[in-house]
């Protein structure tokens, strides 16, 4: 058990190194001349020389990478080219709205998606099943920003029930969280339905029924306990999708989170900010993946330390 966890944590290291090399090279790929990127096109020769000296841009690439990584690990992600504030500071002030949004959307998706999947699987091809599956078909084909704009139009502008943008209390969270959760609801519902239906066909379910167990206990004790295991993996993957979906949702709802910080950073070529946010999001995804693997092993003892 501990061995497995240690091995999984060690396996994260190469991934994080690759991610960091990629994130580091964004500036080199994009800028061509990094000094020009930092100093701006109107910088004088003298200023460029100063920047080159200060950031060590004339040193070999692997040395630059090492310095950058050492600083990043210690929480120094450089300075925003736009505001001249430390990137860590920019991220810190923007992380809460994103975290709120992602966790709320995940909670909604889990509750509604899994419930829909279970209801569908209990009565396959019934009216409820068909409605749920129709919804999940529509849900995965709708662009996130389209859902957001529709909700803003009807609930925000037309009915005036909820604020259409910004951040603050719970009222500001409702529309973005619903918007973000739709596609995850759809995916979770389909996944729950199909894995539950798979389990129902197993012999031990037939045995449970044959020995006279009522349908309720059979479903709760035998079908759901096993049927929901694959759902855990999907939850892990969906959390990553929610984070990247937050980039869109935050832009639609003018929510001051790190997703919007990222988009604005790319548009204004503020590379240190872009690097910082991407690095953070990648680390979060990798960590969530690790947690999911561990949880998976805890709930399904058949998987012992594989991988």
């Amino acid at each position, binding site marked *: 058990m501990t061995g497995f966890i240690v091995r999984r944590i060690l396996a994260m290291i190469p991934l994080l190194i690759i991610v960091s090399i990629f994130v580091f090279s964004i500036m080199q*790929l994009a800028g061509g001349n990094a000094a020009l990127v930092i100093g701006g096109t109107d910088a004088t020769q003298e200023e460029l020389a100063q920047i080159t000296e200060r950031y060590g841009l004339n040193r070999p690439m692997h040395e630059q990478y090492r310095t950058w990584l050492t600083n990043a690990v210690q929480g120094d992600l450089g300075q925003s080219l736009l505001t001249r504030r430390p990137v860590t500071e920019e991220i810190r002030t923007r992380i809460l709205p994103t975290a709120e949004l992602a966790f709320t959307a995940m909670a909604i998706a889990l509750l509604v998606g899994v419930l829909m999947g279970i209801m569908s699987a209990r009565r396959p091809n019934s009216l409820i099943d068909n409605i749920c599956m129709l919804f999940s078909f529509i849900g*995965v084909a709708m*662009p996130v920003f389209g859902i957001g704009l529709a909700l803003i*139009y009807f609930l925000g502008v037309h009915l005036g029930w909820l604020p259409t943008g910004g951040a603050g209390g719970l009222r500001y969270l409702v529309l973005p969280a619903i918007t973000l959760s739709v596609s995850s609801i759809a995916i979770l519902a389909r996944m729950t339905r199909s894995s539950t239906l798979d389990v129902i066909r197993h012999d031990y379910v037939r045995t449970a029924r044959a020995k006279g167990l009522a349908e309720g206990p059979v479903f709760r004790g035998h079908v759901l306990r096993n049927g929901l295991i694959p759902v855990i993996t999907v939850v892990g993957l969906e959390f990553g999708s929610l984070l990247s979906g937050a980039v869109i949702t935050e832009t639609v709802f003018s929510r001051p989170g790190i997703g919007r910080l990222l988009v604005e950073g790319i*548009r204004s070529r503020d590379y240190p900010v*872009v690097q910082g946010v991407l690095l953070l999001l990648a680390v979060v995804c990798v960590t969530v993946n690790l947690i999911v693997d561990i949880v998976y092993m805890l709930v399904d003892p058949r998987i012992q330390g594989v991988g």
Partner: protein
Amino acid sequence: MPPGSALSHSKSNSMATLRRFLHRRTALLGALVLMIMVLAVVIGPFFLENTEGQIDLSVSRAPASLDHPLGTDFLGRDTLSRIIYGGRISLILTTGAVATALIVGTTIGLTAGYLGNVVDMILMRFVDMLLIIPGFLLAIAVVAALGPGTYNVMIAVGVAAIPGFARIARGSSLLVSGQEYITAANTIGASNVRVLLRHILPNAAQPLIVQSTLRLATAMLSISSLSFLGLGPQPPTPEWGAMMADSRDYFTTSPELILYPGIAIFIVALSFNLIGDGLRDALDPHLSQS
């Protein structure tokens, strides 16, 4: 067994596949709708008198009329023409992205599965790592590196979809790599490339086709999302996602300017999904009931 039997067997197989596909009404509906959309986008421009970029402020945000069946946008440009021209761009970018992912991903996957050992381990470790990062985030990272732009968005979404294709191709490749006819092909001196293309690729074709169709839907959504964020084609290029972003300022008074391209994206993505699901069921009847 007569020499022709293998061929006729595979022919009847594909007939059965087609029959199963046609039996699924939803898949058929998807194919039909998509065909109409593609046709409209390809031949539509020949029937349009207004070119999509023609600005006429005197008819700014005009309602639907005979001249402008879907009305005009804030610059007086004909909405229908813009949706049709925008559809060209959206569909080209989507197909281009998936084609990139299909070609690169399949090459990686087949090679890894066929050569095995160290090559397999290195390539697949890399692919598995990339699979942990959500596709859309990967696409954003690539756009960040390449900078915003029409074709950069296509490349970004394509690159992000490579790992999925590589996984599937490797699976199919592994399945047949140990079989006798591959050994036989090797023995009679067929080159690795020939074995990969002639003997292994056909076995991977079915799952790859299904994956491509389903990927087209996600690629369409990713590309329009990136465009909506302002990272894709820049105005005045009429791409569906970009059109929706352009019209945001007139959102409360002219919601239809956002609605029409939104519906277009939805319909195409839904069609790709319906066709993909239908194909999966048709090609693999064992899986169909779930």
